[in-house]
């Protein structure tokens, strides 16, 4: 017997968690002598109140969708991939190499090539931890987090020594060819005569992210590969009994996961920076963990959670800009949301379950 209806599990629980996190944030803001109401207004206004705000919110959300999906796919194979940061960074390198060294006359042609480059390097960066886990039992949490540092150091080297244009003092690659620049969402809207989100980084990658959500959903719940990933994630002896090779599935799940994380680079490297810079990922790999957690490891949940975190990022930036609330407090607010929706999930869930059980019993008694 299910303890509570599905809608309560999927929507009500995270919603209550969110409200709690916001309530405590409000208390903190009150404590430092600012008005929570004003802060809230600034955040909503700044992130959602204009097409300009939306442009940034959607841009951040796109990053988080990719990294969230990456964590989610690995999680279904019961692998905790916290290496999204490094895999996304390597994805950036993949994009840069593809765009700098392959002559591509048009963005529509450059996009698939860059996607392949990003996915291959992201997947390659996940492959080593995956094979170590599958063959040697080295714990994937340890190896992926170490690979984040290796990726950062390696990119540092590559940018300073190899990709930096002669004469430049900036540790960044050359600009990608103009023809390969992705249309921003504002360009796309402008072409159909709507003025929307000028000078914002949101670009067509957002649609690719949406497509990725759909494809991941198909993969996990509709394909044999997804079935095998989920079976392995639930029980390894069971998987072996069913003729599923744990080594093979572990590696494949991590390759898909790393590939998704790498594809984030389409958004931030190809779509926004249009060159490869140091620390381009800016923590989105770690936010992906919270996004997957809050999204209940379902692509649709990941999409919603990514939008929420996109809102928090953009709204938080606005808060720092327009109020005297210090920048650090925005991190506190984001941390509270992660804490309540991710880590303290059961705090809300269990009383809710009890409530629903009681309601149901009353129904039966009547």
């Amino acid at each position, binding site marked *: *017997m299910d303890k509570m209806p599905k809608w309560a599990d999927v929507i009500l629980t995270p919603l209550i968690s969110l409200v709690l996190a916001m309530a405590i944030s409000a208390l903190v803001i009150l404590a430092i002598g600012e008005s929570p109401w004003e802060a809230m207004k600034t955040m909503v206004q700044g992130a959602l109140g204009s097409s300009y705000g939306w442009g940034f919110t959607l841009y951040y959300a796109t990053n988080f969708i990719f990294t969230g999906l990456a964590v989610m796919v690995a999680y279904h194979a019961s692998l905790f991939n916290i290496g999204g940061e490094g895999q996304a960074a390597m994805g950036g390198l993949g994009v840069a190499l593809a765009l700098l060294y392959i002559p591509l006359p048009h963005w529509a042609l450059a996009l698939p090539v860059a996607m392949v480059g990003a996915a291959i390097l992201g997947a390659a960066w996940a492959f080593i931890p995956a094979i170590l886990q599958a063959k040697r039992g080295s714990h994937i949490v340890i190896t992926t987090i170490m690979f984040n540092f290796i990726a950062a150091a390696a990119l540092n080297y590559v940018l300073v020594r190899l990709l930096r244009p002669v004469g430049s003092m900036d540790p960044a690659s050359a600009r990608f060819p103009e023809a390969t620049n992705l249309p921003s969402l504002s360009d796309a809207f402008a072409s159909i005569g709507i003025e929307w989100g000028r000078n914002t980084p949101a670009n067509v990658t957002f649609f690719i992210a949406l497509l990725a959500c759909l494809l991941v959903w198909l993969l996990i719940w*509709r394909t*044999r590969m997804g079935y095998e990933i989920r*079976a392995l994630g639930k029980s390894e002896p*069971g998987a072996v009994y*069913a*003729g599923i090779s744990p080594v093979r599935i572990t590696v494949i799940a991590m390759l898909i996961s790393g590939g998704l994380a790498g594809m984030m680079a389409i958004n931030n490297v190809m779509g926004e920076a249009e060159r490869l810079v140091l620390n381009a990922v800016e923590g989105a790999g770690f936010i992906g963990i919270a996004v997957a957690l809050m999204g209940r490891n379902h692509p649709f949940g990941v999409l919603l959670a990514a939008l929420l975190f996109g809102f928090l990022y953009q709204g938080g930036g606005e808060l720092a800009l327009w109020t005297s609330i210090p920048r650090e407090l925005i991190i506190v607010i984001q941390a509270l949301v992660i804490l309540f929706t991710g880590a303290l999930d059961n705090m809300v869930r269990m009383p809710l379950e009890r409530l629903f059980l009681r309601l*149901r019993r009353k129904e039966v008694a009547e």
Partner: protein
Amino acid sequence: MTAAGEMTGGRSDAAAPAAIELRGISKAFGPVQANRNINLRVPKGTIHGIIGENGAGKSTLMSILYGFYRPDAGEILVNGQPIAITDSQTAIRAGIGMVFQHFKLVQNFTVLENVILGAEDGALLRPSLSKARGVLKQLAQEYQLNVDPDERIEELSVGHQQRVEILKALYRQADILILDEPTGVLTPAEADHLFRILEGLRDEGKTIILITHKLREIMDITDNVSVMRRGEMVASVKTAETDPEELAELMVGRKVLLNVEKAPATPTKPVLQVEGLRMIDDDGVERLRGIDLQIRAGEILGLAGVSGNGQTQLLEILGGYPPKGSKVEGTVTMNGAPLPLSGRGCDAASRRRAGMGHIPEDRQVEGLIMDFAAWENVAFGWQDAPEFNRGWLMDNAAIRSDAADKMERFDVRPRNPNLAARNFSGGNQQKIVVAREIERNPDLLLIGQPTRGVDIGAIEFIHKRIVELRDAGKAILLVSVELDEILSLSDRVAVMFDGRIMGERDPASTTTGELGLLMAGVTDTKNTPDDQGIPPEHAHVDGLPQEPR
């Protein structure tokens, strides 16, 4: 048979207050009435069996007694005194001790540390530890409860871990001991030892409540027995005045065939041929020491033996997944073609393609994904079957309809393919596995412990299906630790001991005594009469190697 509730007891029973008396206990979980108006009287100094199918409400009732749940209605009397058991501490103070089916021990603590855990006398451990050491020594002498107090739990066999649980209860001065399915995890020899301990405890005046669904245990050891069915106490009788058939009927609510009716086998060509099969595990221990077996189409070969003598490894190797890090030698052929025993082609999927079905020993760990819905489990292991796939995607509609059909034919209850496997009772879970494997119509079916933790009604059903498959001309290897099951199903019985086949017998002419000796590693049974100190109905033998750790 007496009416529900009242214990059949003489006046003397009624005069002395019972150790435990329950009056009108009811408990509901949501819409499920787990216990309904339960009356129970357990006289002091007796072993009282509570029997019922899975889900009959036995465990709920005992949880109420131990303070895990509060009853919705009713009264509990301990030694004649009404008492409100609000938590396990109250229960312990009232002298009630509980030994759970799944032990509640700290794995990396020593026996001594586990015994005093929660019953320390003060902030410093040393006084408690030395006191406990003395008490343990005394208990060991009194009741044969020998356990090394300084051994860590993870180093102990399952049987010894259970003794620690009993010692924990006794250390807290329990007079009433509740054991929930205590033999589920034990080898027959360990179970036998446990029963002797329980008898010793009873003779010292302790009261014991034994929850089980095994009829034989009830008949062997209890003084009185109460039967539960669907949350109600349907009967309470003296064990001496009843018999297994009657109890089975009370449990299930209808007549049950305890013995399988089957025609003599008509075996034809050999299907499985095993020659000189050896296996050395990753610790360098030789688990299989040269197994030779042959199974022909249309027969059931029963493989008897105390668990832990290599049966599991044999099934895993035949099933295509030898234990990790093991080395396997020998030849296995099926339908004339050799089966790879390592490397490429040695996996469960290839075995299935070769026409093998496999009902694994542990349905919860291997046979099913407990979090998957029933319909998803119907494709488990057969996920690449063409009828379950359509291009790139799995054909979920086809799997669902296949699942619905199988659940109908095998009477899986509740008949809801969307329910997760873990929400079915043990018997119904097993029916899902059996339906999946048998309906593939395999040339060879490997079966491990087909009815472990399965209720009587489902056992009868599963046995019938296995015999039907045999009659359809298929070869079946049946591994079970239940000697009754082996004897009633098999056409030939082989006995395994310490990685070897000790001998083969005809189930019609052998005796449990003879098989018991083979299970203990004695090969020369020709001149051994039955009454060699082993009661025929037991066939449990002492001095066997302990379960591997």
